[in-house]
């Protein structure tokens, strides 16, 4: 039976594994929101506000990455027969001075897409899992598009990847409403 599986996998690999990376798309929910309250404010005169941080819900933001459908194949079909590796980098732009934003995800967070495929029987390109950077601890997001930092990597298409944020603001940051762009850059590779 295993020989048959290997044969089938070999067939899929011939059609996908050694070709050029197929195009994919990143999908995400709306970004996090933070409305500072008195409880989040610095309380000791002389101190900065960065010592008090607000943490969003563990799954306030969800990301998904799927291969684009082709003329004759759906996204699910393509994700079934083409299993690539992906690294996800993150950076912010136009953040107010003094705003510190950190992000993290969790070990093997999110869902495989499709949930189960033949590849999983013999994962020649590694299991379709997710590996957070920094052991799943928070990573400070750089406000520099030329130095986006790696947040996690995963294999195969994946859905509902939760991103949690921690936000702190120096008193140097302008009060009032602001919008900071959070960029996710997905880099694919064959293996």
């Amino acid at each position, binding site marked *: 039976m295993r020989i048959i599986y290997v044969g089938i996998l070999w067939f899929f690999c011939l059609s996908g594994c050694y070709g050029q990376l197929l195009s994919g798309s990143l999908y995400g929910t709306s970004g996090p929101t933070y409305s500072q309250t008195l409880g989040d404010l610095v309380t000791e*005169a002389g101190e900065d*506000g960065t010592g008090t941080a607000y943490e969003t819900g563990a799954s306030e933001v969800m990301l998904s990455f799927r291969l684009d459908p082709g003329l004759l194949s759906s996204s699910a079909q393509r994700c079934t027969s083409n299993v690539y590796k992906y690294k996800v980098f993150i950076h912010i732009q136009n953040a107010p001075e003094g705003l510190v934003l950190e992000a993290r995800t969790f070990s093997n967070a999110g869902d495989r897409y499709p949930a189960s495929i033949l590849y999983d029987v013999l994962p020649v390109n590694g299991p379709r899992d997710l590996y957070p950077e920094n052991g799943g601890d928070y990573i400070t997001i750089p406000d520099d598009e030329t130095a*986006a930092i*790696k947040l996690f990597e995963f294999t195969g298409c994946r859905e509902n990847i939760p991103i949690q944020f921690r936000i702190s603001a120096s008193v140097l940051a302008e009060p009032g409403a602001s919008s900071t762009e959070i960029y996710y850059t997905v880099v694919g590779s064959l293996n």
Partner: protein
Amino acid sequence: MKTTLGIFLWMLLPGLVWAQETIDASDPANYIVGGAQGYHFLSADLLEVQLVDVEPEIDNALSFEVDPNTLEAGLPVFSASGGGVNEDLWLNITSRTAGLEKYQVRVYGNQPLPPEIEIQVQVVNATSVGGVGDTGTASTTAVTLSETPTVLISDIGRGFTTDGINKGFQLRYTITNLGGGALPVGFEVIYDMQLQI
């Protein structure tokens, strides 16, 4: 010897030069084939904050005790040169202001002083000792304490002095007590921050 040092440094390098992986996300060539890029917004709404306190924080009460060594018949019990000076207290400030708004620190007493007692408050240093940002500029001229607020520090924007003694603005209190009287019970020196107009 050089070879030994080289080997030693080589052994240390893996621990010293490790850095988190980064990428130039402004270059589409890094993600255009098989990757993707997307963004959404962090919507943040930050509050203004103005804090001022007097350090040391646990007990910042001042007492001017009579020093028997300075007593001299014919001179007041307290005078500016007779032990009635204290420089132990420091003002710490944290401030986040909107736009170009500036705040000022004022000082006043919570009740009138007896006529024979005069207290002068002076900021020793014109700018904060330590701190970051726009912590304001102090007038180093001594002011006589009364129930009417008097400005000590002006042009405070967004900044913080850092916390504790020897941080921020040092205060000099000078008490003149010609009659050797006592301050009224519950007498307090109050510092506040107010929007500068």
